[in-house]
């Protein structure tokens, strides 16, 4: 099968000038190479500040990268476009728009007229379980509901690739599990390619085909792990299986080593 997303030696350095000659350089990403197959679900875990969000924003086209190459289905990525969509940790809903108008904004941007948008918007509102809340404002919704809107907003533009930056990080444990399960159902039904960032090892293993472990300073891929747990994973105690436990322990150890490395005094 042809690879959907290909990253080759992608590097990114943030340069901050504090006036004059003094420069502050942060190597956020260094030579990151990664291939994500069509309809694959890949998670990225790594210590805070290792460049996960940066990587996702680069793939989405929100910020430029310095070196390397990124292609989606063979086409190099440029400015943000509707072949890929991003779900943000802070939801990023427009507070003056109702649920329906938030979900429809992508279609509105692409110039689709209201009458054509309506049924599409309605469909995705129903898929994420928000039927009846179409005319509510974001502040009238719980965190979990707000993130459903964030997800529906992206699904509505029907992107081949969905990028998710710690989408469930702000949710309580129960809502989070519910959302994970629903995300898997939607992913399974809609045949999307997903890159999913999380701080939760458990979440990464539960959702993914592969888990990418990143290390910090500079941000690099430390290890790629295949998760061969049987799908669908919501109808058996997948977290109780020995494979799950093993993977979790392995990733945990890796992240811990990395943390120890970072904690050591920097020798600059």
């Amino acid at each position, binding site marked *: 099968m042809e690879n959907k997303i290909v990253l080759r030696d992608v590097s990114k350095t943030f340069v901050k000038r504090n006036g004059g000659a003094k420069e502050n350089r942060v190597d956020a990403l260094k030579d990151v190479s990664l291939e994500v197959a069509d309809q694959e679900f890949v998670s990225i875990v790594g210590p805070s500040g290792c460049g996960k969000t940066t990587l996702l924003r680069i793939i*989405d086209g*929100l910020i430029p990268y310095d070196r390397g190459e990124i292609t989606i289905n063979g086409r190099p990525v440029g400015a*943000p476009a509707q072949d890929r969509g991003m779900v943000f940790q802070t939801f990023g809903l*427009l507070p003056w728009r109702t649920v329906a108008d938030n979900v429809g904004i992508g279609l509105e941007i692409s110039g689709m007229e209201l009458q054509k948008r309506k049924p599409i918007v309605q469909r995705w509102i129903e898929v994420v379980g928000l039927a009846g809340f179409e005319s509510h404002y974001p502040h009238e919704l719980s965190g979990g509901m707000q993130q459903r809107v964030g997800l529906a907003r992206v699904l509505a533009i029907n992107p081949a690739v969905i990028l998710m930056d710690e989408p469930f990080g702000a949710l309580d444990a129960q809502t989070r599990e519910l959302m994970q399960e629903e995300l898997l159902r939607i992913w399974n039904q809609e045949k999307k390619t997903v890159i999913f960032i999380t701080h939760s090892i458990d979440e990464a293993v539960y959702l993914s085909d592969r888990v990418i472990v990143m290390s910090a300073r500079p941000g690099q891929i430390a290890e790629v792990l295949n998760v061969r747990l049987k799908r669908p994973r919501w109808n058996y105690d997948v977290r109780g299986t020995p494979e799950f436990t093993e993977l979790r322990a392995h990733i945990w150890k890796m992240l811990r080593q990395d943390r120890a490395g970072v904690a050591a005094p920097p020798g600059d």
Partner: protein
Amino acid sequence: MATVPRTGILLPLKPGFWTRDRLVRTTSYILALAIWEITGRVVGPLFLAGPSQVVISLVEVTLSGELPLALLVSLQAFFVGYVFAVLVGIPLGMLMGRFESVERFFEPYISAFFVTPVSAFVPMIIIWFGIGIEARVTVVFSFCFFDVVINTFNGVRDVRYELVEPVRSLGATQRQIFQKVILPAAAPFVMSGIRLGLGRAIRGMVIAELLLATTGLGGMIVTYSAVFRTDVIFAVIIVIVVLGVGSVRILKGLESWLFPWKESSTIRSGFEGTAGSVPEG
């Protein structure tokens, strides 16, 4: 916490009418009027006319046509100056918020004028514009212009990145981002500027009439203070207060009608939700 009792015990006019808030307000008004009336009777109308006398005079100068005419004269200068300030202030504030170079260019003057009492420029305004309507319009304009500019500017500049980025991610053009995110996000701030500017414009209107041209409502105050008619002076002041409070009320109503999504996130409403516990920090 205990909920506010919704039925009063005093004057059970209609059950539910005398809420605690209403009772407090009404008591406050009655007390103020009583103190005013008594003081007026004690010191005499030369120093302070009581409210009963003021109401009588208010009716008199209204019926004679003097007050309506003065009001009309005042409102002319007010209207021209205020509308002009809003029409120039909003675009300027937006440009400053949107483009850093525009901000750099204008910011020092805006800040300087904002903190300088406009009254200090009155002599200059007389030299430049005389004492006709142009001068009064100028005073009104300079009283409220900076509130409009600064509020608009802050509203546009401080649009949160978390709002812009998701829309950009959906492929929006710069123009679409401005239309769909920055404008609506800044709109409540622009409205605040318009509302704050309104109050200041009314102040400017009266001050112009007191300090540079004896005309309009301010002119009436000057004229009648020369003959110690405190009753008429108060009548005029009441008109000014009603004008100010009334128009600001209308704008406030307009705001909550236009921005229903803003309602829930005010400190007040947050307080009600967590009443009894003081926010930490």
